[in-house]
Structure formats: C-alpha cells, structure tokens
C-alpha cells in the first residue's frame, strides 16, 4: 500500500463484510421460508475476499462475480434488494426473473458482467473487457473470481493465456476454499499453491490470506495498479475455506471436523473486528450503530423484494434478440483520439525484420518471434516471482507495504 487507509475506508471494509454476511443470513431465512425459488449459495467465511478485492477497484472498472461474490457486488453498488429479488425470481430483479443468484450484470452504470454457471468462461470474457477498455483508452481494469475447482477448466487456461499474451489489464482472484462441492483441492490440482498456475503464463501472482481483509485489499490494490499501468494480468490466490456446503441443500459432512474448527476460529469478520478495536477504529457503540444501520436497511430491502411480483408468464417470450437502436443504442465510449486506430495512422509496415535472420513479409515488428535469433533465449529470463502476504497479520498488512516474497519461500516456510 502506498498509504494507510483513512478511518472511513477501514470502516467501509467492515461495513461491507458485515453487510455481505447479513444479506446472506437473511437469504437463508428466506430460503427456509420457501421464498427463494432455486438454490442458495453462501460465501460465509469468504467475505474478506469479495469485499477486499472489489474495494480496490475504481468506479469505472469492471467486475464479474461468481456465486460466492455477493460482497463484491455490494461494494460495486448493487442494492441488497436486487440480490434478494434475483433469488426470489421477482419481476423487479435485474434479470426480471429470467435468471437467479448472482447471475446479473449492469453494462451501463455499475460495469458488472453477469456470470454463467459454466466455470471459467468469465476469464476470456473479462480479458475481452480489459482489451476493449485499453483499445478505447479508458484505462480500466477488469476483475473476476474463480475457485480451486474452476481452475481445472480448459477455458481458465485458454483465457489466462490469452490475457497474458495480450498483457490485458486483468486481475483474477483465485479463491482456494479447499472444496469444489465435495471434491477436496488435492483431487483437483496437484499443487500446493494454485498461484503457481500463473508461472505457466509468465504472469505475476500473489498468495494472500483470504481471511484477512486488509491483506486482500492491499494486494488487490497493488495488482489493480500494476494491471492499470500496463504490466499485464495478475493472479491472486486467496487461501480460505468454504464454511457451508456447496449450496443450502449440502450439509458438507465430507469436511473433516478439525478442518472446519480451524477455519471457524479464523472468521474474517471477527479477526477484523479485533484489529479495528485494537486500533481504536471501532468500539461497542460504533459496532452497534453499524448493526442497526444494516438491520434497518435490510428490513426495508427485504420488504421491497417480497412485495415485487413474479414476472407475467408471457414475459418468457420476450427479449431473445436485441431489436436495434430502439432496444439498445450501442456506442463505444472513446477516450482516445479515434485517428490513432484509423488509417493511415493505424497502418503498419508490410515487412518485418528479425535481427540476424533477415526480413519476412507480414508486419511483425515488435510482435516478432521470441527465439528466432533473440540474443537471449527465453529460458534464461528470470521467472517472475510470486508474491506472498499469506502470513502477514492484519495489523502489519494494514500498516506497511506487503513485501514481495517468492512463492517458493512461503511454501518452504509453511513446511
């Protein structure tokens, strides 16, 4: 971190984690009252990740949540009523009842891309968002999340590789919560640190304590700044634990009791409260005020959601196609001179030269092959070191810049 957070920022992080948890607790109640139409997923114990990373984004930046990133949506400005109504399939919900859970977005105002259930697909999509933003001169960063299980999909690798090749301003948060439904991470990936996946694409990675909101925030902030500066995509592995089952129906009896107990003792909100109290940023009164604020807000939001109707049946037939300008006026927002990308300024030489190997037809230039006469073979370039904040206590992470530690060192330290 370049500088310490303001008091308000410290409290914002707390507020959003509490809000995230309260929204999900209210949805559990709604679920038990049969008011939630489909499945209900929980991010209990992972709130620090959603909140800490999304809080590092600017308003103009783009994000795409997964099912356990309600917190990120709230930080980006989504109203709790929208989350409730999505789950209750209400007509006033962002998708007007056509989809549920966190499957909704907002292209125009909040810059949120909706996920789909197939894991990994958001990675190339958000790479495209990042590339388009760069092309238009918007200086935006795109962020999305993936789980340990989702990192096994083919499209994860296609997408991250493409992002790396393109040096896209893209930050990927890998939430290693140890479980993909009932499958432990050991059966998913034969790696101690999933951040190591970044090495295959020559991109930087970080390993962070996912239950430490300040470590999450400061690492994400650094990554976002790097990405915005044009240094390419960054992978952040957040070490955490999925406290509930895959969804409400799953009691997760396959999780060892000792493992659960270990992580329950490391609740991200309790840890952060301890830090805030120790720093005199929060006292019992302040805490009560925040609780009351959230309770009042959510009661109102829930009432609104409950009063919204289900969509009329024939609404199912509408909206397959965009019908044109009357439906959506699609206009790219240029923040650079268009002349830079239109001929003749965009034109390139039709010949490329590889030093020591002569010329070829087809405009290679800076994009020429890397080991056709490069003075230094690619293999001898130093590998990018992963950076670790895994053992940084909340207080330390909050007070000083997270120092880069090679991922291998942190591995050694934990053995």
């Amino acid at each position: 971190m370049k500088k310490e957070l303001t008091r308000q920022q410290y409290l914002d992080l707390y507020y959003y984690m509490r809000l995230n948890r309260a929204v999900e607790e209210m949805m559990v109640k709604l679920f038990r009252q049969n008011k939630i139409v489909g499945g209900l997923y929980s991010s209990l114990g992972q709130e620090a990740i959603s909140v800490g990373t999304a809080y590092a984004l600017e308003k103009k930046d783009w994000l795409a949540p997964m099912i356990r990133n309600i917190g990120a949506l709230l930080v980006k400005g989504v109203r709790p009523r929208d989350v409730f109504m999505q789950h209750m399939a209400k007509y006033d919900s962002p998708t007007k009842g056509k989809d549920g859970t966190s499957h909704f977005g907002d292209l125009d105002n909040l810059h949120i891309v909706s996920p789909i259930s197939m894991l990994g697909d958001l990675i190339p999509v958000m790479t495209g968002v990042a590339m388009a933003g760069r092309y238009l001169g918007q200086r935006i960063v795109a962020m999305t999340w993936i789980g340990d299980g989702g990192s096994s999909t083919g499209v994860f690798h296609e997408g991250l590789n493409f992002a790396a090749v393109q040096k896209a301003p893209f930050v990927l948060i890998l939430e290693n919560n140890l479980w993909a439904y009932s499958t432990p991470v050991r059966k998913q990936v034969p790696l101690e640190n999933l951040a190591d996946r970044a090495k295959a694409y020559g991109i930087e990675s970080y390993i962070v304590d996912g239950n430490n909101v300040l470590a999450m925030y400061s690492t994400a902030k650094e990554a976002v700044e790097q990405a915005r500066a044009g240094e390419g995509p960054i992978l952040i592995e957040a070490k955490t634990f999925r406290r509930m089952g895959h969804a409400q129906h799953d009691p997760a009896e396959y999780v060892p009791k000792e493992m659960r107990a270990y992580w329950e003792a490391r609740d991200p909100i309790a840890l952060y409260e301890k830090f805030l109290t120790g720093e005199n940023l929060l006292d019992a009164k302040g805490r009560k005020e925040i609780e009351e604020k959230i309770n009042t807000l959510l009661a109102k939001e829930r009432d609104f959601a409950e009063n919204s109707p289900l969509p009329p049946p024939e609404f199912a037939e509408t909206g397959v196609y965009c019908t044109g300008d009357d439906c959506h006026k699609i206009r790219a927002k240029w923040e650079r001179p268009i002349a830079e990308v239109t001929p003749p300024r965009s034109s390139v030489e039709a010949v490329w030269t590889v030093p020591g190997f002569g010329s070829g037809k087809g405009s290679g230039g800076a994009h020429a092959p890397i080991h056709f006469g490069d003075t230094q073979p690619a293999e001898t370039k130093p590998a990018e070191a992963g950076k670790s904040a895994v053992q940084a206590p909340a207080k330390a992470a909050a007070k000083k810049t997270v120092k880069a530690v090679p991922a291998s060192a942190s591995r050694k330290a934990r053995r």
Partner: protein
Amino acid sequence: MPGTNGSAPSGTQVTFLEAIKQAMFEEMERDPAVILMGEDVGVYGGAFKTSEGILERFGWERVIDTPISESAMIGAACGMSYLGLRPIVEMQFIDFIVCAFNQITNFVAKGHYLWNAPAPMVVRGPSGGGVHGGPFHSANPEMYFVHTPGLKVIYPSTPYDAKGLLKAAVRDNNPVLFFEHKFLYRRIKGELPAGDYTVPIGKAVVRRQGKHLTIISYAAMMHTSLEAGEALAKEGIEAEVIDLRTLLPLDEETILNSVKKTNKCLVVHEDTKTGGIAGEIAAILCEKAFGDLDGPLMRVTSLDTPVPYAPTLEEYFLPNAKKIFSAAKELARY
C-alpha cells in the same frame, strides 16, 4: 487490386472470397469499433487469405492474431462487445467453432435474454465440403446453432449476398454466425455495386421462378439446385428455387408463399440429414400449409455420416445435381 482498399469499381466481377474481404475492409474503415480476431488473420492474412492486407491497413490493435484458443477468442469478443466494440472472429475452419460451443451457446447467445446485454459480434469462417478437406475441415455445423435461441445464423451463396449480409451482420446488435462455403470462395464470381449496401438478415430470396415444385436450399447446394433446375426445365418441370440465405431467423413467409403456389417441396442441404433444416421446414409446412401439399416433403442431403476423405467416398456422401434431379422428378409425379 480491389482487395487492398476494399472498394471495387462498378461492374467488376469479384470472387465470393473477395466479397467477404471487401465487407471486412469497408466495415473496419467505416467504424473504428470493428476489429478482427482469429488464428493467423494478421501476418498471414488468414488461412484462405480472406484478411490479406487488413493488418497493414488497420494495425495490430484492430487485427489480432490469437493463440489456438477458440473459447478464449470468442469469450474475449463477447467481452469486447459489452464495451461497444463490434468484433469479427474468424474460425480458421468453421469445424473448430465447436471448441467454443459453450461460450457461444451459453454465454454469447443467452446474454440479451437473461440480463439485457446485447453482444454485437460476428463469428465467421470457411465451412462445407467438396474440396477433400476430410472429416475435420469440411463440416456444416450450422444446425447446432440454429437450435440456439439468441443467435443469428447466415449461410450465403453469392458474392453479392456474402458482402451485403456480412456488413449487415457486423452492424447487427446480436451475435451472428456467418458461414462461408469454401467451395464457393474462388469458384463463384459476381458483380458488386460500387457503393455501400447491406442485405437484410432473415430474408430468403427466390433464385429461379417455377410452378411445378419448390426446391429450398442454401450455400453451395443452392448452385447445385439451380443446375438441377435447368435439367428439370428441359423435361418440362419448372422448379422454383429458394435460397434461404439466413437459417435463423428463418424466412417462413417466402417458403410458405412458394409452396402454396407449387404445392410441392424438396429441401436440399449439404448438412447431414437427421436434424438438418429440412426437418424444420417439413414441420413448418405441416403446421401452416398442410392442405396445400400435393406430395410428401422430400429431402436431398448428405449422408448421416462424418464427412469422408477419399474423393469417391465424399462424392457419394454429398448431394449433387443428379440426386436432386431424380428426387425432383419423383416429387413432380405426385
């Protein structure tokens, strides 16, 4: 050379391939939001040279050579479209589009319906057989996508339509799949107007007037159907030949108008038989023109097999004018 700046003087005969290239040049010239992405589209100018010279004209930011990652390029194009760009993605061979099946059918196609997110993008590439490409370079996978609400599927047969429909596809606010029959690339020529024009998506066209039966086809088989139509005329059978041009949304009106006139319908497609568009057309006719039919709907299609490699096998596999002629004669007897 017409291809270098995308414009052709009036009256020039250009190939199907040149028409596609012109459409891309002109659309990129017209709108800086249009970019081209695909394997070998830049330095090499595309495996079939459909994008030759585009990199030199528009530069690296707008002409992107990608890794061999169909899901990544289609996913990225979708993300770009959310910021108002209008990407064209080339599949080196359309066979490889199925590598990105999930991205197209689940992400790209459903976005507008589910969360009001239009994805103005085009996925195009060379398709079809008859050039001994073998089982993985000859496919006609259009019907996988005709079954996917939210997409538009175009499969033109003439240079004029190829150019006009590709331009319309780029300007459309929806994801459009654009199939280019590679057999036609350098074999079919046509005259193109000098100025800008588009051809409406979703409209079929009557290529040959007739009164005895209707032959419905598209792409390369449209030309084969016309050839059969000439042979039939010599026997006194006047076939009306309809070129569908767009498979989704399908132009039911043109189909119904013709069949209500001729009362007989033969569908010819290079796609395999089961699950081909002929089955859908048969259902539409049963629902909306049952009383007008004087004979069974007949089909001439490829065999229900993968596309075989050997010339003898592929020839046997594909429809041809002789097979169309025989089927049409049989149908005319009703």
